[in-house]
C-alpha cells in the first residue's frame, strides 16, 4: 500500500471509530448504561409448565437418569435467538438481558423481546414453509414461494391461530399472487401435462406429513409392508379431496364435476376413489367443497394428530431434534414421549396459539437442561440426551451460521432497524455462503457431521475474512481492539458476541497472554485472530 493510501486508510479508520463511538459502542460495553429488557408482563404459563416438569422428572427417575444442570440465562437466550431469528443475540441485547433483575423471569422477557423482533416472523415463516411446500423453486409463473413465505410471516406477526392458518392453506382459492396461501397448492402443479390442476398425490403426502405428522405416502404405490395400519386406498382417498381443485382464468377453483381415479396395485383398471379421511371419519363433515371439508377435519381440536404434529414441529425448530423422531411419523395411538400429550393439550386449549406453544417448550424442564454435566469426570451420556435429561448438541443450519458470523461482527442487533445497506449486504453475503456451505433441504433434521468444505469455508472463506479482518466498519474485532477498556474486557466482549457466554478461566488466561502489551495494528490483528478462532470452534456452528 502506498504511503498516501495508507494515510487515507488511517483517516477513514479514525473517522469510522469516532462515528462508532457516537453510535454508542461505549454504551454497549458498559451494561449499566443500557435500558434493561422489560420484565415480562405476560410471564410464563406456570400451571402447564409445572405439570410438564413433573412428567419429565418422573420419566427421568423411572429411567434412573440424572438430569443435567439447568442451563444459564445466556445459553437459553442463544438457543431461542438462533431458533427464532436465525442468529446469535447481539452484545447489546445480551447486556440488556443481563440488566434484568435476578428475580425476573428471563425466558419470558427474552421471548417478549424476540416476538417483537422483526426478524422473528420471516425467519419462522421460512422454517415452516420448508415443511409446507419444501425448498424447490416449483413451477414457473404459477408458483411464488416468496409470496407464500411473506404471507406466512404476516400471519405469524399477528400470531394468528395455527388452525386458521392451516385451513386457509388447504382450502385456498384464487390467484397465487393475490391469495398467497394458494401457493401451497400450486407448487404441486406439473407443467407441460394435460391435467393443469394441482397434483393430488403430492398434496395428500404434504398434508399428511406437515399437518398430521403421518407418512401416509409410504402406501402411495402399495399397501404397507410393515404393518396393517394403512393401505393404498387410504392414501388415494385422502388425495381425492384435492381432485376438484382446478386451474382457471381466475386461479384455483373447485369443480364439483371432477372425480379422482387411480389404478390400485393389482387392479387391471383404474377405479374412482371417493374422498374419505384415513381416520376419525366422524369428525369430517359430509357437506361443502371437498378441500374446505378436509381443512376443517385436519384442524379439528378433537383431531389430536394435528396438535401433535404442530408440537413436534415447534419442538424440533427450538431443539434441533424432534420430540417424536422421525418428525412426520408420529404414532396415531402412542406411546408418546414425556411432554407430547401435555403440550398437545395445552396447544389445543390455547386455541392453537403458536407463541403460547413456543413459551411452553422454551420454559420446559427439558428445554432448559444444559448440554453438559457439572462434573467433567461424568460427562453427559447418550441415554440422558435421548430422554431430554440433557439438551442435545445439534448442528446449526447454514443460515444460522452465516447469520451469526454477520451478527457478531456488529455489536448491536441487525434487525429491521439496522441500516438498509447493512441488510442488503447481509443478503448477498448469506446467499453466497449458503451455496458453498450446503443446505440440507428436506433432510434438515437428519443430523450431519461438519464437512470438509464447511471447515474450509469457515477457515478460509470470504465472509469470515471480511467480517473478522481488521476493519473499523465491518468488524467488531477492530472496534473492540480500540474501545474495550482493557484486555479482559475485549476478550469477554468477543466471547459474548460470538458464543453468547463468558470465557472460562483457562480461555481468558490463554487469550490475555496473546493480547498482553499489544498495541496498534498488531493488537487489531490479534483481536481478529481471536474472532477467527471463536468462529472456527465447534461451539460456534453447533447448538448447545
Amino acid at each position, binding site marked *: 500500500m502506498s504511503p498516501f493510501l495508507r494515510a487515507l486508510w488511517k483517516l477513514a479508520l479514525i473517522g469510522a471509530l469516532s462515528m462508532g463511538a457516537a453510535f454508542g459502542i461505549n454504551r454497549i460495553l458498559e451494561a449499566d448504561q443500557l435500558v434493561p429488557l422489560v420484565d415480562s408482563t405476560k410471564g410464563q404459563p406456570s400451571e402447564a409448565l409445572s405439570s410438564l416438569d413433573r412428567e419429565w422428572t418422573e420419566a427421568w427417575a423411572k429411567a434412573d437418569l440424572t438430569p443435567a444442570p439447568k442451563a444459564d440465562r445466556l445459553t437459553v437466550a442463544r438457543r431461542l435467538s438462533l431458533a427464532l431469528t436465525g442468529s446469535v443475540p447481539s452484545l447489546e441485547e445480551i447486556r440488556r438481558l443481563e440488566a434484568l433483575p435476578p428475580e425476573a423471569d428471563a425466558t419470558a422477557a427474552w421471548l417478549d423481546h424476540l416476538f417483537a423482533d422483526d426478524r422473528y416472523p420471516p425467519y419462522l415463516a421460512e422454517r415452516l414453509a420448508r415443511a409446507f411446500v419444501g425448498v424447490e423453486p416449483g413451477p414457473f409463473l404459477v408458483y411464488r414461494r416468496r409470496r407464500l413465505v411473506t404471507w406466512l410471516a404476516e400471519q405469524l406477526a399477528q400470531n394468528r391461530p395455527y388452525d386458521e392458518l392451516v385451513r386457509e392453506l388447504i382450502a385456498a382459492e384464487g390467484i397465487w399472487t393475490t391469495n398467497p396461501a394458494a401457493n401451497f397448492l400450486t407448487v404441486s402443479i406439473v407443467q407441460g401435462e394435460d391435467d393443469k390442476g394441482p397434483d393430488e398425490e403430492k398434496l395428500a403426502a404434504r398434508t399428511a406429513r406437515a399437518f398430521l405428522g403421518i407418512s401416509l405416502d409410504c402406501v402411495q404405490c402399495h399397501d404397507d409392508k410393515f404393518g396393517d395400519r394403512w393401505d393404498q386406498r387410504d392414501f388415494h382417498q385422502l388425495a381425492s379431496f384435492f381432485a376438484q381443485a382446478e386451474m382457471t382464468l381466475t386461479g384455483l377453483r373447485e369443480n364439483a364435476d371432477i372425480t379422482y381415479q387411480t389404478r390400485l396395485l393389482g387392479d387391471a383398471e383404474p377405479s374412482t376413489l371417493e374422498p374419505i379421511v384415513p381416520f376419525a371419519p366422524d369428525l369430517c363433515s359430509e357437506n361443502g367443497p371437498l378441500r374446505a371439508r378436509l381443512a376443517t377435519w385436519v384442524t379439528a381440536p378433537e383431531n389430536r394428530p394435528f396438535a401433535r404434529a404442530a408440537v413436534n414441529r415447534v419442538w424440533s425448530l427450538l431443539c434441533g431434534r424432534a420430540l417424536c423422531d422421525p418428525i412426520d411419523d408420529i404414532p396415531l395411538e402412542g406411546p408418546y414421549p414425556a411432554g407430547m400429550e401435555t403440550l398437545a393439550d395445552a396447544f389445543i386449549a390455547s386455541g392453537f396459539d403458536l407463541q403460547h406453544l413456543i413459551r411452553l417448550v422454551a420454559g420446559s424442564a427439558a428445554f432448559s437442561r444444559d448440554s453438559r454435566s457439572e462434573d467433567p469426570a461424568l460427562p453427559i451420556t447418550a441415554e440422558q440426551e435421548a430422554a431430554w435429561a440433557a439438551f442435545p448438541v445439534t448442528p446449526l443450519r447454514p443460515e444460522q451460521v452465516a447469520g451469526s458470523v454477520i451478527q457478531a461482527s456488529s455489536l448491536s442487533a441487525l434487525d429491521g432497524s439496522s441500516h438498509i445497506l447493512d441488510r442488503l449486504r447481509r443478503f448477498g453475503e448469506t446467499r453466497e455462503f449458503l*451455496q458453498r456451505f450446503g443446505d440440507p433441504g428436506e433432510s434438515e433434521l437428519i443430523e*450431519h457431521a461438519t464437512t470438509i468444505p464447511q471447515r474450509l469455508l469457515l477457515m478460509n472463506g470470504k465472509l469470515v475474512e471480511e467480517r473478522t479482518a481488521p476493519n473499523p466498519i465491518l468488524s467488531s474485532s477492530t472496534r473492540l481492539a480500540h474501545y474495550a477498556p482493557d484486555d479482559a474486557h475485549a476478550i469477554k466482549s468477543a466471547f459474548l458476541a460470538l458464543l453468547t457466554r463468558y470465557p472460562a478461566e483457562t480461555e481468558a488466561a490463554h487469550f490475555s497472554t496473546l493480547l498482553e502489551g499489544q498495541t496498534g495494528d498488531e493488537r487489531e490483528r490479534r483481536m481478529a485472530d481471536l474472532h477467527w478462532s471463536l468462529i472456527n470452534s465447534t461451539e460456534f456452528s453447533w447448538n448447545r
Partner: protein
Amino acid sequence: MEPLISPTFSFDCGTSVHLDRRAVLRGAALGSLSWMTPLATHLSRAAESGKTRPKSLIVIWLEGGSSQLETFDPHPGENIAYGAAAISTAVAGLQFGEGLERTGALANDFSILRSVTSKEGDHARAIYNAKTGFRPFPGLVHPAIGAVLCHEMPPTVVSTDLPRHISILPGSTPSRGGYLGAEFDAFQIGDPSQPVPDVAERVAGDRATRRLASLSVLEQSFAAGRRADLASERTLHQSNTDRARRLMSSEQLGAFDISAAPQAEQESYGDHPFGRGCLAALRLVEAGARCVEVTLNGWDTHVNNRENQRARIDLLDPALAALITGLKARDLYADTILLVATEFGRTPKQNIAEGRDHWPHGFSALIGGGGLAGGRVIGETDPAGEKIDPSAGVRVEDIHATILTAFGVDYTYDFMTPIGRPLAISEGKPIPELLAKL
C-alpha cells in the same frame, strides 16, 4: 510426501448419525470415504487396476433440458425438424444434429439412448430425478449416483487427499450425498481457471499457529462435561479440520490446475469454463476421483430453440470429443464411464416463439466407456412427434441401474434410510444391450 495412513484408521470413520446409521446402513463404517486418505494418487490407481470393472464416472450434465432433436435424435426431413439438417457419424446410419461433427466422428466409442423418459416436467424436480434416479420425496433426500459410487466403492488399498466426488460449475444443483450424509456431497469448484475456492490460508506463520493453538484451547473447554463421543462420532469437527488442512497443503491440488496441461491440449477443449471443466474432469479422474460432474447450462430454449441449442452445442462438441480422445489416449476410457445427460428433452412441436418446451416423454443421453457397448442406438421416438411413449423406452432410473451394474454394485440392495424405510439403491433395470460386453 504425506504420511501413509491406512484407510481403517479411525478418523475416517463416521458421520454425525454414525451410531444410528452404522447399525442399519451397509458400509456406513466406511463413513466419509468420499474423501480419499493420504498417499500419492497414482498408487491409488495402481492398486485398483487389474480388475475389469470401471473405476470412475464422468457426468457431463446439460442443465436446462437439451433438445434431443438438435443433438442426438434428429429427424431430418420431418415436420418436427423445422428444416434442420443432420450430419452423419462414424456409425453407418446414425445421424446427429449439426454441430456435433467431432463427437460424431467418435460414435463407435459410445452408445446413444434415444428413448429416455422421466415423470418430472419441472426443472428442479427433473434434475433431482435424473441425478438420483428417484422422484423427490418429502422428508428424504436421495443420494446422487456419484455419492452412491463413493459410498459403495471405498478406495481399496490407499488413496489420496483429494475429494472423490466433485462437481465442476455446479450452479444451484450440485450432486448431493442425501441420506448417505453430507460428507458424500460433491466438492464444488467453479471455472478451473480460478484457484480452488477456500483452500488458501488467509494468514501465515505465527498467526496461523496461534489461531490453531487458540482453537484447541476452545475445543478442550467445549468438550468438558459433554458427551464423550461428540467430537469423534458426531461433529467430526476436529478431524475434518485436520483433513481440510491437509488438503490445503496437498500437492495433489495440482490435479485441479489445468494450466499444467500442454497448451495444445487446453486449446482442444475450448477457451471457456465448460471446456476447462472437462479437462479438469479428465485430470481428476486420472488422479483417482470416483465421480466428477461437469455442468453446461443454458439449454432451456423456450425461445429461438435452434439458434440457442446450437450455441450450446458449439461449446459441447469440441470439449466432449477432446475428453473422449484424452481418456483413450491415457488408457482411462476402459476404466471410466462417461455419461452425457439432461433432465428432460424438448417438445417435438415448436411454440410460437420458435422455442421448444419441456418434454420428458422421450429424450436422449449418451453413454460410453467403462467396457460398455459402443456404436449402438437404443430406442426410437415418433418421427411425427405425436406419441409420448417411445419404443424401447428407458427410464432415468434404468440408466442408474446400468451404471451401478457396470461398476459391480448390487443396485437392488436395500439401504435402511434414516426415515426407517428400506429402499433399493436403484429401482431401475439395467439396459442389457449396453452391458453385453461386461
